[in-house]
């Protein structure tokens, strides 16, 4: 399972990347996409939607499963990866890069509940 260094991770298998001041990019991990199988559809939120930590803001669907994507942070959605509309398979092919889902402008910088790449790697061993 590929765990990209330099990113932060959640127990629900999302990754978080700081892209600029106060803005983070969010997606699901290689482990998550592998569990789901071929992604067939991504339910994307609207721009400017408010999200709260722990709330689901998107759904990633495969043929046999649908997985809620939970926001690891609180803020406002400022970008949505519309490429996923036509090419949901990007999540399978490039989960950390072209398969990103949203960008959120944070209310405050609070990454206390997030894991480092090493911590996530250990976590995966238990799962």
């Amino acid at each position, binding site marked *: 399972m590929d765990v990209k260094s330099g990113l932060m991770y959640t127990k629900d298998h999302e990754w978080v990347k700081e892209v600029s001041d106060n803005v983070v990019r969010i997606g699901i991990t290689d482990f998550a996409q592998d569990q789901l199988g071929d992604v067939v*559809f991504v*339910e994307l939120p609207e721009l400017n939607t408010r999200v709260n930590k722990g709330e689901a803001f998107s759904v990633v669907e495969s043929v046999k*499963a649908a997985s809620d994507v939970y926001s690891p942070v609180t803020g406002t959605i400022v970008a949505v990866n519309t490429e996923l509309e036509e090419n949901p398979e990007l999540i399978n092919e490039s989960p950390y890069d072209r398969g990103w889902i949203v960008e959120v402008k944070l209310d405050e910088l609070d990454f206390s509940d997030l894991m480092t790449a090493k911590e996530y790697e250990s976590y995966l061993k238990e799962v």
Partner: protein
Amino acid sequence: MPYIPHTTAEQQEMLAALGMTQIADLFVDIAENLRLKQPLNLPAPLAEHELVRYMRQIAKKNINLDDYVSFLGAGAYDHIIPAVITHLTSRGEFLTAYTPYQAEISQGVLQAIFEFQTLIANLTNMEVANASMYDGATALAEAALMACNVTGRHKVAAAANLDPDWLEVLSTYLENQDIEVIKIGYHPITGLIDQAALSTTLNQELACMLVGQPNFFGGLEDVEPIARWIKAGGGLLVMAVDPISLGILKAPGEYGADIAVGDAGCLGNPTSFGGPSVGFFAVNGSKLVRKMPGRIVGQTTDKNGKIGYVLTLQTREQHIRREKATSNICTNQALNALAATIYLALLGKQGVKQVAYQCVQKTAYMRSQLLDAGFRVRFTAPVFKEFVLQADLDWDKVNDYLLEHGFLGGFPLKYVDVQLADSVLIAVTEARTKAEIDQFVELLRRCR
């Protein structure tokens, strides 16, 4: 024992393989006090030959549409059913198959459903139809729930002149999800939705407007202004339609409906005391497709490039989404949908048009004959295959009289609204002949 192949010897052999000596050993997990000590109190079994005679006796206690000429409608109709349909639906491969979860050995059922979806979508002039619902009433309720889900709103408007039983089902489904149903009344003279009641503030809060076309009284609504009104407020237009009528009447898609529902029992299925029937559910717009309840079949290819069919978009459904599913529906009405598909294939575009045309003409003929006989018609709206007759008569007594003469009369409207006690709902389908209509009119004339 009926239908059980095992001989006692075979049972013993099998028990021995399990290290057991008697059947009771299999049920040790059931506590002694829960095990029945007596046989169930049910009637003694009847051998097949006796059974047929017995059931025939019960069946004979029912007056049926083979022996009586029916002008009774109100949600179920005596339409012509081609003979060949049951021969095809009784084929064991269709009759005894389950839901097509193993697609490779269920291509028959899957392809048939794909045809049903296509023909219903075409007939209703909508983009996508699902594999069927239980009936029109539950399809309407699910449409309202879907509209609320899609818009995020908690209020729906429903025409008060929809079938009262459908309105009751709607209410049962919606009130438990804290969704308010606002009834839009109908005009006493036309019998149509009272357009004056379409308030310009209400539509901002509504998830949808539910309109029957035709309505319960058989009348044809002026849908355009209603469509404009509901959409102006951001809500969906849901139309409940008679699929046979779409042979000549404007289809929901042509009105810009977002969701079209109805009962397709009239397409090749017997009345069967109200069930099994089959509901249909069709939508416009890809956003709505992914929120549709029920099964959907899609076309794809196998690994050798051969075209095949599978259940698709299953992540909407209960077996994957569980409590987040768009609906709890699992078993639907597949065999009845198959009958409807065969009907549409046999009648075809010309035949369905003719059925609808004959319904309109025969209903109009009945209506004009009754007017000539001095009866009044309640409601001025144009009608499809039903209309409301008005007279100061006890319609129950009239129906008893008609019964003595071999006719099933219309539905007395006192059973839905005491203010309509002087009225009866009469249906005339393509199955009725001029002679039957003339005789019926004559009998009614004698009642006055």
